């Protein structure tokens, strides 16, 4: 009787482990779900032009990153100066200070996300897409996701800049 119970528990555990590992396998297989044999052939055929296209995207994005980075820096200096001016005149502006902190964090995150995305593109450039098309496509997918994250962060910064402007306009109206 005891042996039967133990056997049942063991069988249950094994079934649970199989189920968990199967879910894991499904989760791992998911990124390659779009990768059909036709697409693998296409990657092999268009390997050189794909590498060239990624190189062009990387160059174009580097320009956007540099220009944005400089403007963000200048904007942060400008808003910090305005906050200091309020403080010097003994005016309390907690919302502006909080928004400035949020802006700084968002800009830092934008930089970190871009670094990650750029590393993906560099990784893709190192892979021979003729011999390793699956690895190549996996990295392209990763780069795509990371680029989306950079884009999302740009939206966050834009949104915070809008909030800061609205708060400053409120202080102006109150004067």
């Amino acid at each position, binding site marked *: 009787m005891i042996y039967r119970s133990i056997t049942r528990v063991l069988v249950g555990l094994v079934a649970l482990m199989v189920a968990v590992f199967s879910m894991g396998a499904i989760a791992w297989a998911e990124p390659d779900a*779009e990768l*059909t044999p*036709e*697409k693998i052939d*296409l*990657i092999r*055929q*268009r390997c050189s*032009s*794909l590498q060239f*296209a*990624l190189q062009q*995207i990387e*160059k*174009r*994005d*580097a*320009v*956007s*990153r*540099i*220009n*944005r*980075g*400089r*403007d963000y820096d*200048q904007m942060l*200096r*400008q*808003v910090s*100066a*305005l906050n*200091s*001016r*309020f403080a*010097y*005149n003994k*005016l309390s502006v907690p919302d502006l200070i909080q928004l400035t902190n949020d802006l700084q964090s968002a800009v830092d995150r934008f930089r970190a996300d871009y*670094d990650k995305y*750029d*590393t993906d593109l*560099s990784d893709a450039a190192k892979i021979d897409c003729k011999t390793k098309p699956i690895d190549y*496509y996996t990295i*392209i997918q990763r*780069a*795509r996701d990371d*680029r*989306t994250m*950079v*884009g*999302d962060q*740009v*939206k966050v910064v*834009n949104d915070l*800049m809008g909030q800061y*402007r609205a708060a*400053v306009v409120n*202080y*102006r109206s109150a*004067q």
Partner: protein
Amino acid sequence: MSFAAPFAMLRRRVHRVANGPKLPLALTGAIILALLLAGVSVAWYSLGGSSKLDLSRPGYERERAEVRTNDSQKTYDTTSPVTASAIDDFLKEYDGRVKELNGYGNFSDGALDDNAIQLNVQSGNSTQ
């Protein structure tokens, strides 16, 4: 065979170099130090992320022209009273910057989508 002989020979050689002309020693030291510092700099440049944004490399001539270079480090008044006109000046510059930022790429254009890089199986086949 004992270890004393080679060890004594090494000691004699070190003694000879130490008591000999100092110029070759100094030059070797300087070269080693220079190589070490160059190695540290290159590692810093590569690992620190600067290399990713360095458009001075060959092949980036067109991109270099697109980077804004007229940015001067502007200083701002932090001690004058906060007046309506001061806030208006702030908003004028701030809005100009927002306009500039809207002119740059925002990384949301789907440039890496399959269609954009012509990895769509149907469009890819049609171009073959």
